């Protein structure tokens, strides 16, 4: 086996792990990392996106539009959840754990009762390509590009747009922002919806590659929390490097010793990073800058 094949396969596995970590974590990075809401229903927003995507594709929509529909529906559900539940609990972070956990149980069981125990898959598009001895799925490259796109989009949104500035101001010093005439309630709502929509996007993107069941959100939740905890409060400066570091650990450990050690490696890396950098990677980077 030649070197180029080995390098490509290592890069591919890294990209694959990176995409999964970043896409699972982005929505949570906004809701938990930025807003400080410990959202245990994150996986169910992902499930919602995946289900809506699959349903619309079954109804005849092309996959990209289906994914868009999944994203939008999840964002709208996010708005409703924020209005009804989360809004009243911003200064009670421990209570949000219970509330969002309850929401997640209701969502999982409600889906099971209403939609049934499984939903038919939609099939992965694009086919495969060959490098050396190995064949790879093209869609996995699409997922990697989508992860990069989402990170770039988030950076642009929170740094270059008026909404981004207002959102950061509102979350940093809410009463000052309100005094300056910012409608903080609206900003909170929109930011939460943005996080929920990103979760839905992750669900939509992974829907063609996975089993569609009410409990599918659970397979994302560990990776999502791990990435956000390591990343810290800044969506871009945290999630991107955290995803990178964890993807290296995970892909190297998995190719060396199998899936179990990949997961062990992931958790050990988290313990080390949290111990050394209590504010996460972004906390470390930002402190260096100031």
């Amino acid at each position, binding site marked *: 086996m030649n070197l180029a094949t080995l390098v490509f396969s290592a890069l591919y596995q890294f990209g694959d792990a990176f995409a999964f970590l970043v896409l699972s974590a982005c929505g949570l990075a906004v809701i938990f990392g930025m807003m400080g809401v410990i959202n245990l229903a994150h996986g169910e927003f992902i499930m919602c996106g995946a289900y809506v995507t699959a349903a619309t594709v079954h109804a005849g929509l092309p996959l990209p539009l289906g994914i868009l529909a999944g994203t939008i529906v999840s964002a709208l559900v996010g708005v409703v959840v924020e209005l009804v539940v989360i809004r009243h609990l911003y200064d009670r972070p421990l209570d949000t754990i219970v509330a969002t956990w309850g929401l997640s149980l209701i969502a999982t069981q409600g889906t*099971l009762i209403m939609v049934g*125990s499984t939903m038919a*898959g939609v099939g992965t598009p694009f086919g495969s390509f060959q490098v050396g001895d*190995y064949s790879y*799925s093209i869609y996995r490259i699409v997922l990697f590009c989508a992860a990069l796109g989402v990170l770039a989009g988030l950076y642009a949104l929170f740094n270059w747009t008026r909404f981004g500035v207002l959102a950061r101001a509102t979350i940093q010093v809410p009463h000052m922002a309100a005094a300056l005439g910012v409608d903080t309630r609206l900003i909170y709502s929109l930011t939460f919806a943005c996080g929920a929509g990103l979760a839905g996007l992750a669900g939509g993107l992974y829907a063609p590659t996975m089993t569609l069941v009410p409990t*599918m959100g*659970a*397979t994302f939740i560990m990776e999502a929390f791990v990435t956000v905890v390591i990343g810290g409060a800044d969506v871009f400066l945290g999630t991107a490097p955290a995803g990178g570091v964890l993807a290296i650990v995970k892909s190297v450990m998995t190719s060396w010793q199998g899936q179990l050690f990949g*997961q062990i490696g992931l958790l050990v890396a988290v313990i080390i990073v949290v111990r050394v950098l209590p504010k996460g990677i972004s906390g470390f980077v930002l402190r260096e800058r100031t």
Partner: protein
Amino acid sequence: MSKSVLRGLRAAALTGTLVLGSSLALAAENPIKLGVLEDQSGDFAAATIGKVHAIQLATEEINKAGGIMGRPLELVAYDTQSDNTRYQEFMRRVLQRDKVDVVFAGFSSASREAYRPIVDQFNGFAFYNNQYEGGVCDGHMIVTGAVPEQQFSTLIPYMMEKYGKNVYTLAADYNFGQISAEWVRKIVKENGGKMAGEEFIPLGVSQFSQSIQNIQKAKPDFVVTLLVGTAQASYYEQAASANVNLPMASSVNVGQGYEHKRFKPPSLKDMYVTTNYIEEIDSPKSKEFYAKFKAKFPSEPYVNQEAENSYLAVYLYKQMVERAKSTKREDIRKVIALGDVCMDAPEGKVCIDPKSQHMSHTIYLAKVGADHAISFPKTWEDIKPYWLGEAGCDLTKKDPMAQYTPSNPPPKP
């Protein structure tokens, strides 16, 4: 309404206690209580909701026809949520508080091993209506599902002859996957093949890029997939999209999780499964069972082998109680010891083996085509669960209440 009645009602509402109605004439008699502990939610629900429905169907039929010895059959069902600790909790509850006569319980082997000591401790009587890794030698248990000597001794040699002798095993990382992989290893060796590789996947893992690459690196002739739970089923779609294009063999797929219905063709192309029942089996008995099932549960996505195992188990229990004229376990085991507890099930004739209290089965080799249609290249009739008996487990003489494996056989006397 008294406080205790209220509390009872509330507990019933909370836990979803299910009491099937029975006709007035029967209600006069003291009912026979059957506990049902199956996963109606959680990771395994897709494969197990049909088991509960099958038990309900059989119970309804039996009660309509006059019950068991004139006594109606009453179900006490709890949702175990794919959670091992729930099994322990509810097993204690059905045995101690509900005082059921028999319990039908369990999908995953982890949950079975979680509740089995409780059945032994409280001297209960349980049916495990599920295919599994084999080896349970316990007088408190009757197993109606298929075991490795029925599923692998047929499947693996067939695959090795057809595709080649290099075998790769991809298995779920818990007792079922580990022990089943041990069986595969043993049978591959006995047939002069070799293991190209093995990987064990933790339950709940859904991303398989690296495992797919490991398989491609090992270049096996076919892959034995012993993946369990809905998360792990994502493997097929991902392997197909990476164009792995290897034949697959399994004892759990299709027959339990109906992956060929859930995934878009051709992701399960060339999957071979040995199963004792799936709804595609084209015999009059099977058709009749399928029609009855669909009439009662029209929205059932699939009638799988565990549904059939559960259905026939209710009838087997009826037969044994009527022959023993008692619901006591010791009386029923005397009937089993006669060695002629058999019935014409939807799959064909099945009998209980007195030594191991496991069942003989008709084993169908199901092949999934490129369009996900099922064909049956081969059928083996009356395959006995012989391993435990040959290895030295004889429940008619001694009840060790243990589980054995090829590397840990029963102690020689």
